[in-house]
């Protein structure tokens, strides 16, 4: 199914990442956004407030982040594609409803334009310190998908992709931008609508009365029902059976939680989205994501210029983490170097999969990006 041309601003534009993310959502046929504006994500909803009404979409500035993150669930069950937009302090408040969306298998998108924390931290300055919160911030056991754009172009591309993944797997998908990418302006090329493939909502073929809202298909994902078409069913954050009614038995919990995690874990290879350069035959691979993946490149090039074999492995999808890929690479490597704008988050995942290879983190508390010279030193140190 091609995208609705009404929402696709085809052409070459000079946009910041925040605005590009808005256009990605529009192109993906998102027509409902509820949000509570917060720096550095405010420009996303500013543009949404202007653009959405032009295509029949709705933006509601809510009273807070709790309301924003649950309003989108209502919109989704009402038939819309929906998202909310925030930054660290708001993301913390939304955690309850990330879990609710997981439990009720509500396909929706959360954009987090990361800034320095903890607490209100550095409103106008970048960080990548919510990466573990994205994975584990809500209570209970679950899996989500998290994407990490490194340019305004990718803020468009990956926000668009996030909606498709949300529909395909019926999970919340988190677009983990950062202040630098969000406020940076570059050329953003938006394709024609017929070049944008939409993953349609998985509507049930069962008749009302026969529909089981949480009976999974072969790929473990259940189908949804159109609101107002006579389907009556129960939905709850409590552990539930295939009919959607609470069933707090050990067996129901085992069945449900296993399915919610397996529908992502068993598709980890299909979900893997990385960009590689010079990884084959490398002695060191720099594992990076988001803005830091760009800042690492001058460091890698400087090392290569002096004869070191350094690979660049950029994670566009951070969660699920590409475990198998890292394990496969580890056997032929001397070291991984993991620069990130936090005090050590994704580096732990790399350590878990690195086998005998050395793992060198390059932490940074945020507020700006790494000095490439610091990453260069870490690479040289790692092969010494």
């Amino acid at each position: 199914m091609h995208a609705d041309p009404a929402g696709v601003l085809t052409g070459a534009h000079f946009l910041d990442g925040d605005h590009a993310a808005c256009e990605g959502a529009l192109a993906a046929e998102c027509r409902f956004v509820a949000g509570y504006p917060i720096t550095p994500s405010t420009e996303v909803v500013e543009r949404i407030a202007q653009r959405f009404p032009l295509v029949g979409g709705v933006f509601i500035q809510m009273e807070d982040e709790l309301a924003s993150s649950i309003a989108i669930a209502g919109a989704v069950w009402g038939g819309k594609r929906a998202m909310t937009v925030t930054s660290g302090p708001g993301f913390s408040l939304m955690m309850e409803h990330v879990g609710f969306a997981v439990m009720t298998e509500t396909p929706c998108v959360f954009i987090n334009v990361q800034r320095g924390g903890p607490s209100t931290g550095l409103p106008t300055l970048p960080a990548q310190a919510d990466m573990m919160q994205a994975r584990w911030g809500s209570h209970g056991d679950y899996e989500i998908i998290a994407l990490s754009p490194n340019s305004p172009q990718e803020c468009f591309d990956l926000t668009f992709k996030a909606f498709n993944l949300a529909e395909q797997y019926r999970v919340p998908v988190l677009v983990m931008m950062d202040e630098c990418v969000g406020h940076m302006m570059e050329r953003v090329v938006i394709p024609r609508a017929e070049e944008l493939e939409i993953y349609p909502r998985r509507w049930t073929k069962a008749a009302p009365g026969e529909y089981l809202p949480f009976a999974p298909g072969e790929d473990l994902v259940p189908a949804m029902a159109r609101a107002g078409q006579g389907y009556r069913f129960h939905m709850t954050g409590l552990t539930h059976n295939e009919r959607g009614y609470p069933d707090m038995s050990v067996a129901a919990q085992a069945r449900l939680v296993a399915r919610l995690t397996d529908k992502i874990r068993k598709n980890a290879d299909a979900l893997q989205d990385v960009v590689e350069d010079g990884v084959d035959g490398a002695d060191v691979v720099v594992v990076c994501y988001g803005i830091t993946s760009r800042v690492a490149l001058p460091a890698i090039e400087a090392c290569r210029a002096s004869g070191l074999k350094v690979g660049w492995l950029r994670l566009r999808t951070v969660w699920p983490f590409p475990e198998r890929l890292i394990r496969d690479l580890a056997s032929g490597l001397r070291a991984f170097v993991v620069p990130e704008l936090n005090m050590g988050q994704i580096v732990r995942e790399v350590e878990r999969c690195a086998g005998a290879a050395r793992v060198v983190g390059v932490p940074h508390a945020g507020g700006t990006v790494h000095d490439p010279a610091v990453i260069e030193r870490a690479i040289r140190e790692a092969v010494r």
Partner: protein
Amino acid sequence: MAQTQIRIGGFGGQGVILSGIIIGRAAAIHAGLNATLVQSFGPEARGSSSSAELIVSSEPIWYPYVKHLDMLVVLSQDAYNKFSPALRPRGLLVTEADLVKPEPPIPGARHFVVPATRLAEELGRKIVLNIISVGFFGAVSQLMPLEAIERAVKESVPPGTLDLNLKAFRKGWEAGEQALKQAPAMA
């Protein structure tokens, strides 16, 4: 073309960010180059310091911030004091005639003075000072053809102000060309 690192500085309300956006858009959309712009501004809407950092290159741009300036345009004294020490030797410096006293001077800089306030007053609207400066910078920097920047001006200014802004742009460009002619040794 190697990377060119540019900063445009002034105070909030002068339109320095818009100036950076116009030059970035001209490069990235109309001149076949890559451009990355990041902006910084104080919390106030007007009066605080404001600057746009712009990298223009024929190659991909990875590191997004400017480090050593190849070109600096300043429309306020604050911006001059703050940013001029980062200008490379023989870097291009454009200062506004009435708002900036270029002291201490930057030895070796290719220094041009744009009478943007005066030219804007001739057009009857002081607010176009930034677009005059964009035109002037476009001519003296020789980064891109006039048409590329002019198209970006058209796409960037509010509707209803187009004629005024295009006049301002041309006026700035002509002043820049004049200045370039009068300083052949520097060009």
